[in-house]
């Protein structure tokens, strides 16, 4: 493993949306460092700014205060160097392209060869178990299948930094387990840095080297938990006491961020 070099460094980051009836403080005073090769999960109640933070990293939203660097550059420079793979919360497939052409989209843009494209389409669609649906159009697929296609699209090219916004939200447990495992393998193999939003505590604990717990109004980081689980993680690690201890800490952090407790 290379020495921990900061990929993302956020300092006193803040973002305020102006809406018709006042301001929304989506992020405030966020300090966070993510190092190369880390797998960082973001967890927190809905509306706490997880998506917004990922969007700031990817240069899709401009912070209104504080600073953020990506690979030592501004997010914009990093984006222009195609440092990101991004999986959005909604699938966002292009309705005029078949599934395979959707997966091919970033590859075409990044100038991969025809052959390479074909090869990668096959590989990634296989990974998300969508073989046989290459020629279907998005609206002919179920919600979960669409989401898997959008994951395939982000995995098809080699971005060093993978940002995933609830990629497995619409999937069943089995597929989710399967994809969790695949993702871990991919991560181990490629040494990507991954930013991952999820609502599932076990998923966060199972996947991450670092778990960022957030809380809303204004969106801020309330806890950063470094996981000491080994890098090799069989699925049944989820029953281990270490695992459950981390999960409990995350749950407590989460609960603290909620207004209602019964």
């Amino acid at each position: 493993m290379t020495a921990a070099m900061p990929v993302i460094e956020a300092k006193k980051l803040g973002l305020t949306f102006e809406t018709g009836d006042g301001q929304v403080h989506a992020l405030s005073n966020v300090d966070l460092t993510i190092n190369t090769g880390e797998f960082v999960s973001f967890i927190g109640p809905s509306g706490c700014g997880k998506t917004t933070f990922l969007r700031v990293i990817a240069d899709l939203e401009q912070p209104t205060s504080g600073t953020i660097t990506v690979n030592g550059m501004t997010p914009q420079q990093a984006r222009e160097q195609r440092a990101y793979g991004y999986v959005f919360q909604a699938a966002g497939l292009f309705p005029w392209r078949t599934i395979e052409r959707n997966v091919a989209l970033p590859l075409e843009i990044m100038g991969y060869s025809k052959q390479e494209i074909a090869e990668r389409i096959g590989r990634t669609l296989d990974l998300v178990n969508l073989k046989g649906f290459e020629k279907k159009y998005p609206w002919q697929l179920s919600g979960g299948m669409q989401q898997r296609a959008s994951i395939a699209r982000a995995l098809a090219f080699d971005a060093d930094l993978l940002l995933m916004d609830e990629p497995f939200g619409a999937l069943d447990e089995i597929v989710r387990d399967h994809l969790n495992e695949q993702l871990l393998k991919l991560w181990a193999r490629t040494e990507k840095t991954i930013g991952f939003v999820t609502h599932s505590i076990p998923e966060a604990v199972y996947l991450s080297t670092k778990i960022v717990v957030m809380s809303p109004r204004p969106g801020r980081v309330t806890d950063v938990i470094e996981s000491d689980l080994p890098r090799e993680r069989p699925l049944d690690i989820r029953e281990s006491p270490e695992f459950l201890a981390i999960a409990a800490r995350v749950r407590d952090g989460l609960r603290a961020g909620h207004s209602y407790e019964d």
Partner: protein
Amino acid sequence: MSFLLRNWQSSLVLALVVMSMAFLPIISSGGVGSAFLIVLLIVAGAVGAMVLKDRIAILVLLFGAAHGAVWLLIGALSGKTGEATTSFYLLLAASWLLAWRLVTVLSSIKPKGRGVDVFLRLFIPLLFGAWLLILWEAIVRGAGIPFVLLPPPSAVAARFSNSLPILAADVNQTIFKAVLFGYVVGCGTGFLAAILADRFVFMRRGLLPIGNLVSALPIIGVAPIMVMWFGFDWQSKAAVVIIMTFFPMLVNTVTGLAAAGHMERDLMRTYASGYWQTLAKLRLPAAMPFIFNALKINSTLALIGAIVAEFFGTPVVGMGFRISTEVGRMNVDMVWAEIAVAALAGSVFYGVIALAERAVTFWHPSIRGG
């Protein structure tokens, strides 16, 4: 009661027939003989459509009754132009309602096979159009409207078939020269201008307001000027068509280019996709429904533009030339023959574009069926 409402056409038909009895005969100088047969046909159709169960039987009956009745009605007019009575018009309305019922029943068919579907797609509008002509014929002849104001379709058809070479020459001059050239260039430049305006903010801010101003030029004023500049042959007409088609294309394309969703654009941003790539892969496909909207609007505008421009100075051939000249000669049937050609050509033109639209924007909810 609901039984009467579900088929309100039949109920109304029966009411009309009863009313028409009070105003017999149907032709002021004629007897009531043929009227009897007509009433019989209409009543049979109306009642049949209410009581019969088999759809095919209903269709056949309605078709026969409506067309048989109207055929007899128009036949009764021969040599008695202008002598139609109230009774005539009531029976005419009744047969038309039967035809409407026919169309309603036909439209409710959910075709299984592709052949049936295509047939219905063509047959229903044709039936509707045929009835427009039938009503026109019956009313013009029934009321004795002067020939120079509005000729009956039968006269137009006769003139049409006698003047095919002239019509062909006019179509060649107006459509194959002026319209096609102007349409392609006008739509093309409108599209390019939209891209330009989209690409360079400076252009958009400068060009769009001026473009709006210039391209909304009333073509009537432009046409004589174009004739001055480009001569009296088809080139000046093409210039008018270019000016007319430019604006809709520009506006629609600019709107369409803004139609791509936010998330999709963000996605392209994360790929650091360049302007042209985003354009080609996201924004143009998303703009296609709008672009086709412009292509469709323009297909009709182009035809009108070219024809109207020919009112201002042309060689002695062309659809617009013919129309304006033959009005002056009181050959109103020839005028309508040209209009029929224009309508036919325009519909074909539009139809081709609509087919292309279906093929290109197959993914749009409005095509997938919403």
